[in-house]
């Protein structure tokens, strides 16, 4: 099984990818419609919460964060997909990433945009968001620069802006292809503007290569820092169940895990919707699946480390939280997280499953459910079983408004992602050509060597 055929004509690569901008399968419109509907629900809930107050979310002391911050962490985690495929695997010269890294980068950008919304939504009083920004005011008061919450804001801003630039810079040669092949109209104008007059000269390619590599080098540690900082939001507090040293690596592993399973889901959807069977091959899918399996095992190990360190620390409050998770109100969800995150991925160890698309689609959805539950299970049990006994009878169930907003966030993300794939090439044409070129060269060399040996 090959990652890609070596004999695909370069002109055909252009044609196939450009066709995806015009003629997707009907399922595309169904997905877009559903996404718009879900987004509409989210907007409705936010408007209602904005007008009525945060009480409608059923958030109250001591339960202050709820699904909003759980889903925020979920989306931040999802954003690690693009960095893994574009930056980390680029630095490791894994060329099988080439046909699929563009959509993973788009996933990064849009999931960060979605995550950012939740920070604002959970404040309730949206109009006071500017309080958290470091600006010189007449009061001479600054945000607390030692707070991980401020680090978080800065880290997400850096990650989002760098990811957008990374996505854009990497797309310039493809935008030039679109510019050269589109008929007159808004698309041509847009591509002409965005391609900046790219002509593929040696000077442009030389500087392009260095820039892309440089941003990849910056993004790799940045991605690790972003999720470590999100972990610090919890680990630097004194709350039982959160004050754990292994939280940063645990969060980073969880982020890569949910990012990879997100890639599998979208890989399967895009492959079918845009007829990319020749580029998003089963061989590439198999590689992502194996990577996901490896990361799932790391995540499982880190979970075990966390439970063991809590247990052996003999800190009664933390132990109580762990017991609460396994036996209390949230037990079905906690066990659901263990099942989806640690048991379901065992399916991926079987060779047959690694290329079975319906099975993989179902598994990837379950993995993502597990990852979402993980974030909820980090937040909810601690709030409902803190140090003080008065918190113990506060098992707050999220209101429909919170659920609606979570649902809406999936709609918002899907809508942005599907619109992006329809307007911009979701497969990198020039990188696929490079892949085909290098593989055909390699094939020629080995054929020549074989003939020489004979």
């Amino acid at each position: 099984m090959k990652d890609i055929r070596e004999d695909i004509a370069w002109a055909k690569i252009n044609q196939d990818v450009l066709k995806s901008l015009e003629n997707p399968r009907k399922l595309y419109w169904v997905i877009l419609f559903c996404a718009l509907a879900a987004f509409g629900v989210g907007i409705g809930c936010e408007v209602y919460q904005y007008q009525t107050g945060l009480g409608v979310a059923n958030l109250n002391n001591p339960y202050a964060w709820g699904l909003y911050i759980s889903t925020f962490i979920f989306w931040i985690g999802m954003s690690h997909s693009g960095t893994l495929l574009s930056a980390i695997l680029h630095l490791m010269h894994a060329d099988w990433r080439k046909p699929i890294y563009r959509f993973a980068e788009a996933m990064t950008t849009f999931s960060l945009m979605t995550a950012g919304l939740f920070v604002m939504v959970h404040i309730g009083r949206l109009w006071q968001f500017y309080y958290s920004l470091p600006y010189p005011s007449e009061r001479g008061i600054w945000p607390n620069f030692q707070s991980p919450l401020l680090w978080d804001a800065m880290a997400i801003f850096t990650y989002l802006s760098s990811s957008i630039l990374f996505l854009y810079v990497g797309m310039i040669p493809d935008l030039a292809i679109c510019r050269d092949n589109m008929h007159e109209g808004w698309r041509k104008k847009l591509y002409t503007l965005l391609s900046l007059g790219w002509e593929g000269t040696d000077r442009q390619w030389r500087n392009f290569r260095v820039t892309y590599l440089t941003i990849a080098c910056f993004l790799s540690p940045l991605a690790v820092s972003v999720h470590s900082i999100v972990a610090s939001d919890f680990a630097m507090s004194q709350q039982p169940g959160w004050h754990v040293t292994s939280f940063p690596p645990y969060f980073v592993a969880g982020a890569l895990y949910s990012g990879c399973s997100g890639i599998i889901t979208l890989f399967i959807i895009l492959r079918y919707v845009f007829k990319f069977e020749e580029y998003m091959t089963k061989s590439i899918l198999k590689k992502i699946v194996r990577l996901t399996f490896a990361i799932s095992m790391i995540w499982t190990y880190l979970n075990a480390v966390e439970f063991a360190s809590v247990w052996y620390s003999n800190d009664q409050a933390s132990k109580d939280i762990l017991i609460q998770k396994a036996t209390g109100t949230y037990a079905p969800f906690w066990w659901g997280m263990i099942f989806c995150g640690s048991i379901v991925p065992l399916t991926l160890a079987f060779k047959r499953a690694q290329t079975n698309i319906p099975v993989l689609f179902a598994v990837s959805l379950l993995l993502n459910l597990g990852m979402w539950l993980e974030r909820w299970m980090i937040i909810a049990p601690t709030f409902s079983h803190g140090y003080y006994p008065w918190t113990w009878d506060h098992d707050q169930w999220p209101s429909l408004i919170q659920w609606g907003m979570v649902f809406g966030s999936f709609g918002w993300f899907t809508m942005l992602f599907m619109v992006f794939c329809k307007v911009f090439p979701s497969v990198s044409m020039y990188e696929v050509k490079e892949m085909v070129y290098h593989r055909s060269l390699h094939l020629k060399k080995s054929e020549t060597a074989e003939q020489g040996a004979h």
Partner: protein
Amino acid sequence: MSQRHLLALFNNFEDAEAAIYELRAADIKGFDFDDLTLKSPIEHHEVEDVLGQRSAKVQWFTLVGALLGGLLGFFLISGAQANFYAQIKGGKPIVPFPPNFVLTFEMFVLGGVFISVLGFLVCAGLPAKRSPLYSAKVSEDQIGILVKADESAIAKIKGVLLNHEALEIQEEAGK
């Protein structure tokens, strides 16, 4: 003497490479080898062997951007923290280094990325008007050699390019 531009299109990189080698070796009067530009649909690492060392300067922008970003971040935060008339620190360090390192790192990355992209635009000459001798085939599957030379040298250059199976040669008067 007036100068002219030539764009020759080739079917593959090997033919274009051979033509460039010959143009370099031919030492044609009125043609400076540095005025030769290769246009291709993909990045060829081998291009440096063919064209000789033409270095990229983006990394210097990156260095300056990252250092300035980091320094700016650190001093902005420290400046705000050192405002101790307004913020009573109660014996704690006025400028705590460990937590400040986090934001300094973020600004270091931010500066590095932004200025690298700026450097890319400057070094690659973007945004640019498309040159009159551009062929859309270069973004598809053909390799282009763009040459600027004196009118007297054009015939010889054309000969070399055709010798190496140029598919098409476009010509335009330069400035």
